[in-house]
């Protein structure tokens, strides 16, 4: 078969389709979004009727996938690393229930925080849940390991975590496909009580999970996802996890690598494999993208064994993404540096687009808030977070999805009145609704601005679950109808809008202002598609 040129994300998607997938469940998040988008765009997936509608958030995605697995079919869940925090309750408990149909969870980490609030390492979650975790180093492995993940999941009746990082997610290379497997037929678990985590059952299930740990380690040993390469120079051995292996090998593209290397692509790792390397060499260099997980284990509390080098002793930087030069320096190689970046170079930070409705929403908020002392606008995650930067500088917080409303509630309880929450439509249905219910129950003077641009813009314009439902949701949660206001954020309506904001911010209860105008990027894409369609019709006539 011809090789396909695929992003790491797309390789995972194709691998899942070919492994007999029946449904992908996900909420968008960089750098994981392209997995689901690829399946949504795939003709094969359409023909195979693979479910691929976006979920409201990562927790609902995870639970829906557990449901599909319960019914015997193969399910894939995709999210960015912080999404796994949202899905954690379902995720950790799925390790206890176990899987029936294959269940693979992809978490895409973002070291260096290219577009995230933190750089947490999802491998910890694999260890926390005590389930097998796979970590590909390249696009082909991303494809192969996704397929293997489903096999592993059904072999041991366990969910499997697949961890990637930004660079692999968004880098393209040739991928060879293997034969397409059939989807599973529907079949319920043999034990219909398996998924009831009452303590009496959960204890048994948990014992089962613990007893599988040896088998998990044995599988890591035998799957071929951990490879040992011997080398002549025993002064140092190298452990390289996931994509770090590529950076290591880049430094030996012209020569054979002299050191013994253990390449790791599956966890948990057996003691035997680590010990084999350890006994062979005088010191060990650990290269891993993310937290120093293996390194910390090797050092232990006392760190009194052979010298260990890695992120904890400064051989590699403690934080951020790895790259070939950092690897080269850690290996003691001479690395080139190129020309100096000229002093005239200026940064070019991202900006809200020209004509974006968020400009007008925040101009209105700024106009009203200048009458109060600063520090009262709690915000959230989306394009609108760019309002933190000049020239707007409107907001005072961005912590996790949904936190704008709940933080504003907490601040008013502390006496900060009035407080404003500014949240996007997709973020609102992701995690804002429950917070608004809290606000209504507490009867606090909070004004919630829902910026409804009819899409999930930040991640590239996916459908928003809130579309056409916002007023009903807000009403249903108990906000008084008189205090649900809808405005059109446009420059020429600025004065009118400021008046509405002033009234509601002064109101001593919960009010919601929906600022509604479509994202100009999705609008222009929609118009282009419409024209293209018209063009085709004209040709047809």
């Amino acid at each position, binding site marked *: 078969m011809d090789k396909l*040129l695929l*992003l790491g994300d797309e390789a995972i998607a194709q691998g899942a389709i070919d492994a007999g997938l029946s449904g992908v469940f996900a909420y968008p998040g*960089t*750098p994981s*979004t*392209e997995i689901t988008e690829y399946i949504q765009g795939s003709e094969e997936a359409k023909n195979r009727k693979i479910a691929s509608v976006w979920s409201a958030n990562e927790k609902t995605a995870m639970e829906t996938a557990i449901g599909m697995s319960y019914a015997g079919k193969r399910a894939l869940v995709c999210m960015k690393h912080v999404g796994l925090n949202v899905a954690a309750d379902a995720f950790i408990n799925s390790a206890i229930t176990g899987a029936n149909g294959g269940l693979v969870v992809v978490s895409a980490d973002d070291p260096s925080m*290219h*577009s995230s609030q933190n750089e947490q390492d999802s491998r910890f979650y694999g260890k926390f849940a005590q389930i097998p975790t796979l970590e590909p180093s*390249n696009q082909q492995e991303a494809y192969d390991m996704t397929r293997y993940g489903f096999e592993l999941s059904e072999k041991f009746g366990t969910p499997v975590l697949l961890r990637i990082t930004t*660079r*692999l997610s*968004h*880098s*393209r*290379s*040739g991928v060879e496909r293997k034969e397409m497997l059939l989807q599973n037929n529907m079949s319920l678990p043999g034990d219909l009580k398996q998924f009831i985590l009452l303590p009496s059952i959960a204890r048994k299930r948990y014992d089962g999970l613990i007893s599988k740990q040896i088998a998990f380690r044995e599988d890591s040993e035998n799957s071929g996802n951990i490879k040992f390469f011997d080398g002549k120079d025993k002064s140092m051995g190298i452990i390289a996890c996931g*994509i770090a292996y*590529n*950076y290591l*090998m*880049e430094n030996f*593209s012209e020569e054979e690598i002299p050191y013994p290397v253990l390449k790791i692509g599956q966890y948990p790792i057996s003691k035997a494999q680590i010990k084999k390397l350890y006994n062979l060499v005088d010191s060990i260099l650990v290269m891993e993208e993310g937290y120093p997980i293996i390194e910390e284990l090797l050092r232990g509390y006392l760190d009194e064994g052979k010298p260990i080098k890695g992120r904890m002793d400064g051989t590699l930087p403690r934080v951020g993404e790895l*790259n*070939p*030069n950092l690897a*080269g320096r850690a290996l003691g190689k001479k*690395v*080139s*540096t*190129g*020309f*100096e*970046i*000229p002093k*005239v*170079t*200026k*940064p*070019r*930070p*991202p*900006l*809200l*687009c020209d004509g974006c409705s968020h400009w007008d929403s925040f101009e209105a908020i700024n106009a009203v808030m200048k009458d109060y002392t600063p520090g009262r606008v709690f915000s959230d995650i989306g*394009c609108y977070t*760019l309002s933190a930067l000049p020239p707007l500088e409107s907001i005072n917080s961005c912590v996790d999805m949904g936190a704008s409303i709940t933080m504003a509630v907490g601040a008013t309880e502390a006496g900060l009145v009035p407080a404003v929450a500014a949240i996007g439509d997709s973020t609102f249905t992701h995690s804002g609704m429950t917070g608004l219910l809290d606000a209504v129950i507490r009867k606090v003077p909070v004004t919630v601005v829902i910026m409804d641009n009819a899409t999930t813009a*930040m*991640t*590239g314009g996916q459908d928003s679950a809130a579309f056409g439902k916002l007023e009903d949701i807000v009403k249903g949660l108990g906000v008084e109808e008189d205090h649900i206001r809808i405005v059109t954020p446009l420059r020429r309506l600025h004065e009118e809008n400021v008046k509405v904001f002033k009234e509601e911010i002064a109101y001593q209860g919960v009010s919601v202002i929906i600022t509604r105008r479509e994202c100009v990027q999705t609008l222009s894409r929609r118009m282009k598609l419409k024209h293209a369609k018209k063009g085709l019709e004209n040709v047809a006539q």
Partner: protein
Amino acid sequence: MKKDIILSGVGGQGILTIATVIGMAALSEGYQLKQAEVHGMSQRGGDVQSHLRLSSRPIASDLIPEGTADMILSVEPLESLRYFNMLDTENGWLISSINPFKNISNYPDLEDILAEIWKLPRHVTLDADQVAKDLGSVKAANIVILGAASPYLGLKYESLENAIRNLFAKKGEAMVELNLNALKKGREMAEEKSK
């Protein structure tokens, strides 16, 4: 054969189109390829870059090591400066348009930017916007730059032409012609300058 190329520009300027054309051409000649793109935040008028690696042998890293790039191919002059550290000081070429994209208030003087580029031992700079406009549409400016880079890519010119034909086919014959002309004009100008 091994070519490591940094593509740079501002979100929406079409550097991924350039990458796709080079990628298709390279694959048609049987080379291996890795291409790291930037998605997410940076698309809203921020800086974007892509690492494109072509080789006749397997490629390990998705990222080009600092100081080893054979080329910086930039559709915006300020953006080309950002990756000077990536360029191989012995052999690297910098190919850039001289058309500034000003969406920051402290955008440096264009003269200062060009002075820095012209200090490099190997560079081609051209008014890609004007060339593309003269050919019919400023949209083809990215392909003009690609044309200017084409003598140094280590790929056959016909492979690039074929890639453009395939990539733009669904947009109609006029778009194919425009971009083929842009490629040709860019190449002629680069060859003219290196004489």
